[in-house]
């Protein structure tokens, strides 16, 4: 079997090819996340409040979408025993983990771009610091994708995994939700926040992502082992 980066490329390309064919994220998860944004816009029905909470709603919708996307990513591998076949083939599981994280991150980034656009239209916010927003999206997405794949791997072979994943994943993803929300509010300059206040949160998000990427790469083999 090949080295970790080559394995990661192969697995990422495979996961993205599966999504290109099935279009589950595009046709089901994306509309679901969009609906969350629309429903909150109706529920809040107040421009001032809506613009104040827009950053939080973007990340809440992203987190809900993450749960569905991770579930799907591992269900596809488990359906016909492909994840077990990958283990049996002695593939470098660090590479498998990083490949799955990369594919998940690409899908989440597309999704988040749509959610930010929805926030701009529905909640009447404007992006005051585009660079900060891009940094938040990248750092938070890396962290979410990493924890998503760690816990997706943990529950892949477990009974009741559909309900177990949110239970395990949500508490661990909470720091990302908080940090990304604060930093996005700064990028939107909503609620009196300034762009300068957002960068420390980006640092925290980057540290979170780095820790979970390393921890996931080192532990993934053991997590998916029988």
């Amino acid at each position: 079997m090949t080295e970790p980066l080559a394995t990661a490329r192969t697995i990422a390309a495979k996961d993205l090819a599966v999504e290109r064919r099935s279009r589950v994220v595009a046709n089901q998860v994306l509309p679901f996340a969009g609906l969350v944004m629309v429903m909150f816009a109706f529920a809040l029905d107040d421009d001032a409040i809506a613009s104040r909470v827009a950053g939080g709603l973007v990340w809440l919708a992203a987190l809900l979408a993450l749960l569905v996307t991770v579930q799907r990513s591992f269900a596809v591998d488990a359906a016909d025993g492909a994840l077990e076949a990958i283990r049996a083939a002695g593939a470098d599981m660090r590479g498998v983990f990083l490949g799955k994280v990369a594919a998940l991150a690409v899908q989440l980034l597309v999704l988040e771009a749509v959610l930010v656009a929805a926030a701009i239209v529905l909640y009447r916010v404007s992006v005051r610091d585009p660079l900060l927003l891009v940094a938040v999206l990248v750092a938070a997405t890396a962290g979410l994708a990493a924890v998503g794949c760690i816990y997706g791997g943990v529950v892949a072979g477990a009974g009741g995994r559909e309900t177990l994943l949110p239970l395990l994943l949500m508490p661990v993803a909470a720091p990302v939700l908080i940090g990304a929300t604060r930093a996005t509010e700064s990028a939107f300059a909503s609620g009196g926040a300034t762009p300068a206040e957002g960068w420390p949160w980006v640092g925290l998000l980057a540290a979170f992502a780095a820790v979970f990427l390393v921890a996931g790469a080192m532990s993934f083999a053991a997590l998916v082992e029988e």
Partner: protein
Amino acid sequence: MSDVRAEAIELRDAVVLYGAHPALTGASVRIGRGEIVLVEGANGSGKSTLLRACAGLKPLVRGEGRVLGFDLRHERAEVRRRTALLAHRDGLWADLTALENVQVWARLAGAAPDEAAAALGRMGIAGPLASRRVGSMSAGQKRRCALACVVVRRAEVWLLDEPHSALDAQGRDDLDALLVAARAAGATVVVASHDTERVAAFADRRIVLSGGRVA
């Protein structure tokens, strides 16, 4: 590097659990390199567990085991890289085409891209069929794809669990020819099968399992 003097597979008093239930209860097996060995036995006799243990997937809880000289307790990663397991499930991605599926395994094994098409061709899947989504294929066609994935891995030990299942007459003949060719190329092939007469026709010997032990 594997020890070329070592047996392909050597288990001594191996105990392996399937959940909490002991599926192998002290199995001792020696299989030489370049052999085709038929493993037979009733349902629940431990055939699948024997193959999974030899693939490094199921840990030994007691006893000793080596595959190509690598210890099944401590060198399972080495074992996995050198063995190819075809389990009951095909291990395919339904949304990818047959060719894309085999290409994934070719890339993971470091094989040349054109080896994927060649492996599929050996299993009778070529032309438009190779470009068809696996999810829309018949069970027999999926099994052929799964066997092509085994071929492209270029493993030293093939562990096949009911490989003839779902295959039509031509597919079964193709598979038999493939296994004989693999032996000629130096691979060791272990086939668990209820289709005993067919496999016995070209196997070097047979192992009968009963109650998790070699009878």
